[in-house]
Every structure is written in structure tokens, then in C-alpha cells.
């Protein structure tokens, strides 16, 4: 019995080992769960922090590049006035994209009346704001209905950026070109580094187009003032002073009236022929009456009477034609005289109203000198822009001494000089600008 018990003891598992094994398995499972959770939390945290980091980097880039870009665009738009050609194309493209999206949304929402009305109102406000901005005016001032709408915040931002007194702070250092206190400027502004992205080709293209127009305008103005500027071919007939235009109008009117006078002379000749025919008819009637009187025939007298009436009718008509032709000829002469007198009065009035119409020699020389300076600046600016565009298009920043790398290290690139020189150029175009100094 005791041996069987021993055998039983020796063959049967110990309860403590099973318990230990069970507990160990439980602990291992719990540890695995905890470790897995921790690992999951670590991954979630890494993804979160990584996303936040990337988002912060991205948002910082937008915050630095966005206002700078917007202010450049608004500055150019503001100084360019209503000339749409001077505005960079991407501003127009942005408005075009917005307009297209709104149109698309309005088209899709035509099935819903309320949404359609709301979108249509939004589209109309966008069109109105775009048209006012193209005219270089403040939409919030010009259109009060835009103060309460989805475009309010956007227009207020544009207004605050556009009203920044940038140009009025001339002469400027390069660090003061954008903004009054450097807010929103990237840390590399104004001196670019290797890491600073190059100017977008679309901005350079817009500036180049504006400069081409500016150079053309200056050359035309210089040619008009008799300076040394080159006048583009084919524009000699279009560039005329108001006095010359008045002369052209008067000459055209005088030519037309002289043609009319020539026609009247021809009408007078025909009237004289008609008068001769009438005289013949009168003679015929008189001879018929004379024969009727001599013969005493009543039948002959009746025919003679009808002939006489016909001759009288023809004479009345001829007299009326001659009188009208004479009156018209007299009035035409008066009109020609009045046109010439009006031409002289108009030229005198133009000279009195606009001193520029008949500039004095000294004023003309000063104007030519100013135009020449402006033209030189514009050409330099255009050449600089062309050089910058060529370097950027070459795509080899270390190719030689004229590479972008060298510009970046030794001197601001020509493209970076554009805002300063452009503002100086625009300031020079303002009336009364002290360019002589």
C-alpha cells in the first residue's frame, strides 16, 4: 500500500509546478499584450509627431512664401493701375481658376434652387471683386455688398497687403523692399542663398512682358518728344498730337464739303442747261401765241396757251433748282469757313488746356532727358532679366563665372534686383518725379 502510494506519488505531477506553469503562461501573455500595446502606441506617436513635424514645416513654408508672393503680386498690380498686361499672369490664373470652379459648382448645383442661388450670388461677387481689382481699386470700398460675404476675409487680406506703404519709403534698402517691418519675410530675404528657390519662371515672364510694354511706351514717348528714342516701325501714323488730330478731322470734313461743292457746281451746270431748254420752250410758246394772234384761230390759240403753261411750269422748276443750288453753295461756303475757324479755336484751346500740347523748348529738352533716363533704366532692367532667365534656363549653377552660384555668393542675382529697380522705375514715371536729381 505504501509502495503504491509512493508510486502514485512518483508518477503523479506536482500541483505547484502546474500552477507555476499556468501563472507563467498568463504573465507571458500579459507581457506580450502590454508590449504590443506599447509598440502600437510608439508607432502611433511616431506617426503623429512625424506628421505634425511635416505639417509644421509645410505650414511654415506657406506662411513665409505666401505673403511674400501675394505682396509682390499686389504691389505690381497696385502700381500697374488698370493695365492688366502689367500684372503677372499667375494672379489672373488664380482668379481664372476660382472663376472656373465657381462656374462648375453653379452648373452642378442647378438641380437645387437654394444652392444655385447661393452659388450664383457667390459667383457674381467674385466677378465684381475681380473687375474692381483689375481697375486697381479697393473692392470693399467700391462695392459695400462684398463686406458681407464669403470673399470678405480674402478681400480684407488683399487690402491690408496692398495698403502697405512700400513705395512711399523710397529710397529703399533691399531689406525694406517688402513689408514695413520684415514680417512674413523669409530669413534669407533679401540676399538669397543656395537653398533659396529661384524665382518662378512665370513671374519672370510676367515682369518681362510688363517691361517690354514699358520700353515700347517709353520709346514711343521719346520719339514723340523728338528725342533719340527709337520709334517702332509702323507707328509713325498713329502717334499724333491732338492738334494734328484736329487738323486731320478738319481736313477730312473740308474734303467732303469740297466734294459736295464740286457736285453743286455740276448741279448748277445742269440747271443752266435746263434753263436753256426752258427758254426754248418759252420761245416756242411765244411763237405759237404770236401765230395764233396773227391768224385769229381759237384752236391754235388753245394749243399756244397749253404750250405757254408748259413753258411757265418748266421755268418755275428751273428757277427753284437754281435758287436751291445757290443757297446750298452759299451755305457750303459758310460751313467751310466755320470749320476752319473752329479748327483754329480748337488748336488754341488745346494749347491752353494742356501745356504739353505745345511744350516750350526747355520743357521739351527736360522731358527728353527724363525719358532717356527712364528708357536706359528700363533697358538695363530688361537686359538683367534676360540674363537671369538665361542662367535659370541653363540649369548649371556652377558652370562658370556668370553662373547663378556666383551671383548668389557675390552679388544679388539680377532677378532679385527687379523689385528695387522696378519700383524706382515706376516712381520715375509718376508726374513730378525728381528724376533730374
Amino acid at each position, binding site marked *: 500500500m505504501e509502495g503504491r502510494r509512493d508510486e502514485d506519488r512518483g508518477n503523479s505531477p506536482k500541483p505547484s509546478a502546474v500552477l507555476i506553469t499556468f501563472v507563467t503562461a498568463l504573465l507571458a501573455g500579459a507581457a506580450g499584450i502590454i508590449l504590443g500595446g506599447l509598440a502600437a502606441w510608439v508607432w502611433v506617436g511616431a506617426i503623429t509627431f512625424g506628421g505634425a513635424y511635416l505639417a509644421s514645416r509645410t505650414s511654415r513654408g506657406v506662411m513665409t512664401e505666401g505673403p511674400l508672393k501675394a505682396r509682390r503680386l499686389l504691389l505690381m498690380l497696385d502700381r500697374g493701375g488698370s493695365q492688366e498686361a502689367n500684372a503677372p499672369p499667375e494672379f489672373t490664373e488664380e482668379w481664372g481658376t476660382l472663376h472656373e470652379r465657381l462656374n462648375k459648382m453653379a452648373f452642378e448645383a442647378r438641380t437645387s434652387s437654394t444652392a444655385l442661388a447661393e452659388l450664383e450670388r457667390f459667383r457674381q461677387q467674385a466677378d465684381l471683386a475681380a473687375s474692381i481689382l483689375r481697375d486697381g481699386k479697393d473692392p470693399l470700398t467700391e462695392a459695400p455688398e462684398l463686406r458681407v460675404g464669403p470673399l470678405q476675409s480674402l478681400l480684407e487680406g488683399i487690402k491690408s497687403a496692398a495698403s502697405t506703404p512700400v513705395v512711399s519709403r523710397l529710397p529703399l534698402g533691399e531689406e525694406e523692399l517688402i513689408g514695413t517691418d520684415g514680417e512674413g519675410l523669409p530669413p534669407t530675404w533679401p540676399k538669397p542663398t543656395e537653398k533659396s528657390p529661384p524665382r518662378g519662371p512665370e513671374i519672370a515672364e510676367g515682369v518681362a512682358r510688363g517691361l517690354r510694354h514699358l520700353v515700347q511706351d517709353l520709346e514711343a514717348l521719346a520719339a514723340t518728344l523728338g528725342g533719340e528714342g527709337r520709334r517702332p516701325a509702323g507707328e509713325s501714323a498713329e502717334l499724333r498730337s491732338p492738334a494734328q488730330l484736329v487738323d486731320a478731322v478738319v481736313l477730312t470734313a473740308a474734303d467732303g464739303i469740297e466734294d459736295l461743292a464740286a457736285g453743286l457746281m455740276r448741279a448748277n451746270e445742269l440747271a443752266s442747261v435746263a434753263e436753256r431748254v426752258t427758254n426754248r420752250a418759252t420761245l416756242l410758246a*411765244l411763237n405759237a401765241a404770236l401765230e395764233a394772234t396773227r391768224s385769229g384761230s381759237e384752236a391754235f390759240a388753245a394749243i399756244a396757251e397749253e404750250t405757254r403753261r408748259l413753258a411757265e411750269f418748266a421755268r418755275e422748276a428751273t428757277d427753284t433748282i437754281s435758287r436751291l443750288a445757290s443757297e446750298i453753295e452759299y451755305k457750303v461756303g459758310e460751313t467751310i469757313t466755320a470749320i476752319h475757324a473752329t479748327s483754329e479755336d480748337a488748336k488754341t484751346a488745346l494749347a491752353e488746356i494742356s501745356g504739353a500740347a505745345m511744350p516750350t523748348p526747355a520743357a521739351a529738352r527736360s522731358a527728353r532727358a527724363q525719358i532717356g533716363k527712364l528708357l536706359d533704366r528700363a533697358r538695363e532692367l530688361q537686359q538683367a532679366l534676360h540674363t537671369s532667365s538665361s542662367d535659370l534656363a541653363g540649369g548649371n549653377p556652377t558652370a562658370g563665372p556668370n553662373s547663378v552660384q556666383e551671383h548668389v555668393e557675390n552679388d544679388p542675382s539680377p532677378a532679385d534686383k527687379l523689385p528695387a529697380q522696378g519700383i524706382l522705375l515706376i516712381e520715375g514715371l509718376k508726374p513730378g518725379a525728381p528724376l533730374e536729381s
Partner: protein
Amino acid sequence: MNMNLGTRGALTFRLGDFSFAVRVEEAGGVLDAERLAHLPCVAEPVAGVAAFRGEMVPVVDLAAYLGIETHGLPAPRYALVLARGVDRFALLIPEIPKLVPGRELREAPASAVDPELGELLESELETDQDHFHLLNYWKIFESMIPLGGAAGPSRSSVERGN
């Protein structure tokens, strides 16, 4: 017909400050005298010759014969043909004559006769608006051109020859 004047009417025209009349019985017709054929070696009052119904008639400038100034008169000229039998001549006048019926004509008083016209004046006619000198025009013509010369052989001379 005005039995007192012995005419059915008169052709009247103005010449300077004077008005003249020709009996319709003496008038052969009126023609346009813009183109006259001038004759050489004739007296000044003879303006030339004109064609009238296939015949050539001499034209006498009455204003030049009477010494009446006609400056400023209109350029068109007409010829009033006078006929007596087969003899014709024309008076150069500056306007188309007017035909005045005989019933409107009456003889003017003797006091109205212009003494300057002398023996050439045959009578004076008048209407309610105007008065006219009736001249012996054939006497004027014969004083310049004898009928046997300018107008060719007259019927009387032919008859005498026959």
C-alpha cells in the same frame, strides 16, 4: 382786235430804261440769237445775220442804233423778226418779249411821247402797268441797209425788172 389801234396785240420788250412795242402783224417770230454770223464791212448797229425758218435775216442792234446803254443786261440775246411781205429783218433784244393782247393796249397821250426819239417814233402805247414806244422799225433798217442791197433783190425791184 383793238379797232382803235388797228392791232391784235403787241410784243413788248425793255431796252435800257425804255420799253418798246412791235405790232403782232409786223412780227414774224422770235428766235435765239446766241450765235450770230457777223458780217464784215457793215455799220456798227448791224450785229450780223441769223437763220430764221430757212432764210437768212439781218439782225440790227437796236440799242446800238439808238445809243441806249445796255451794260449789265443779261447775256442771253434774242432776235425779234419783223416781216413785211417777203422782206425780213430782226431786232437784237436782251430778253424774251412779252405778248400783250390788243384789248389791254391803248394809245398813250401825246405828252408821254419821248421827244428824243424824233421821227422814228410812230406812236405810244400803254397798259395799266407800263407804256411802250412804237417805232417805225423799217425806217431804221432802211437807213442802214437799203432793201436792194443787204436783203437781196427786193420783190419791187424784181417786179420793176419784169
